[in-house]
């Protein structure tokens, strides 16, 4: 029962979604809208679960005094304060703090997002440019024919897709565009076929209960 019911649910909802796609009858459309609503609600619990797991992970680190546990305190304090600021709808209007005023442009949540979240998140990704420049110098070698082809294509795309490319020669952007819309398109379409067929096969295996990895261990 512990495996059969989940498998049955998977089969029923999978088959329903396929049938609904091909037969959009008013009855199936109503059921479809209900299912969409249910899945939306269920999905939010998965997110709550993720948040719970992360909180437990950091709490355990603090309890066990694992190396760097002090930083976990920062994480937990930041999480609690930000959540409170958001849930209580704290806003600063004309220098006054008011509660239950939503999460709009005057909210503290938006201020936290703009001044804590954005700088860190965007700098983390921006930093990769430095490592890429260093790797470009040390690692990108034309060791084989294939690697040479890759580098040549990259060379033209890098030069052709920025304004200096057209300043050097108007032919450069044209050639870069050709690379992108002929050989690149062919490669990406071939890869897409592979991924799509794989996705369909896996989906079918899940619906039919052949792929059961998601059930995990146990009975």
């Amino acid at each position, binding site marked *: 029962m512990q495996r059969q019911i989940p498998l049955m649910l998977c089969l029923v909802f999978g088959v329903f979604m396929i049938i609904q*796609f091909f037969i959009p009858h008013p009855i199936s*459309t109503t059921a479809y*809208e209900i*299912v*969409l*609503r249910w*899945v*939306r*609600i*269920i*999905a*939010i619990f998965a*997110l709550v679960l993720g948040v719970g797991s992360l909180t437990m992970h950091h709490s355990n680190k603090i309890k066990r005094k694992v190396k760097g546990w002090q930083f976990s305190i920062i994480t937990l304090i930041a999480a609690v304060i930000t959540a409170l600021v958001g849930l209580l709808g704290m806003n600063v209007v004309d220098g006054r703090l008011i509660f239950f005023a*939503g*999460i*709009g*442009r005057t909210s503290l*949540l*938006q201020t936290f*997002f*703009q001044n804590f*979240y*954005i700088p860190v*998140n*965007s700098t*983390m*990704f*921006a930093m990769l*440019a*430095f490592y*890429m*420049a*260093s790797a*470009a*110098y*040390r*690692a*990108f*070698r*034309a060791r084989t024919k294939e690697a040479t082809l890759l*580098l040549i294509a990259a*060379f033209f*795309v*890098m*030069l052709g*897709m*920025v*304004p*200096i*490319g*057209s*300043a050097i020669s108007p032919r450069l952007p044209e050639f870069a*565009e050709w690379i*992108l*819309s002929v050989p*690149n*398109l062919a490669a*990406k*379409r071939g890869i*897409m076929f592979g991924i799509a067929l794989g996705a369909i096969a896996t989906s079918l295996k899940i619906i039919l209960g052949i792929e059961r990895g998601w059930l995990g261990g146990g009975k």
Partner: protein
Amino acid sequence: MKIFQALAKIDRKIIFAILAVVIIVPLIKPLGIISRASNRAEAVFNAVDAIPPGKSLMISIDFDPGSQAELYPMLNAILRHAFAKDVKVILLGLWLTGMGLGEEALSITSQEYNKVYGEDYVFLGWRSGVLPVILGMGEDIKRTFPTDYYGQSLNDLPMMNDIRNYRDIPFFITLSAGDPGMNTWIAYAQSRYGLKMGAGTTAVSAADAYPFLQTGQLTGLLGGMKGASEYEFLVREKGYSQALTPASQAMDSQSLAHLLILILIVLGNIGFFFIRKTTAFKGEK
């Protein structure tokens, strides 16, 4: 020989410093390299331009601050274009952590054009689940988003009176930094409901969009910060906005940084081949 050996030993921190200089200097002293719009960007621009005043453009924020530099200028430029043309805007997002960016963009651009919330634009916010959100809006937007980002019922927003589902949306743009994003919208909204759509993507995924452009599943493409600069250029050229154009401002730095990377690759390879040749020669002896 010594030169190549010395080159091979350049400390990476020196490379970091050179890259920083190459980017910062053109921002302060622009070189003025002329940037033009590509056909792909013009296609997106024309599709937005063709929306009759009073009809709605839908935009999805499928990115977070990690891709802000590339996609946020696109969002601002598109919003300015739509507001200047009196096209109504429905903004939503599949990425929870992009909501703050949507809020910020709307608060800036709506003030520039004196647009009224609920009449000229609506911010639907975020809903969990991705597929039920995209598929649900194909049936009924108000049932998928009973309330907007601020918790207001959509029934109370006059702009939403005439809008039921994708059939009432003449054009849609996804600003996509990955998954969920462009591919998801194409598979579930474009294919199933025939939603006419364009995409603004990070440069990383721009090359993946070409098969969809060729089949017409995508009307046009804004690829990375260059794509954003092209849209900014078009919006400014047509006189829709005189606001700052951060992506266009960045193009000189972008050009020089690309040149630097190319020089680094070439230098690295010359050193590699030279050292390999000499080592092989010594080995033969």
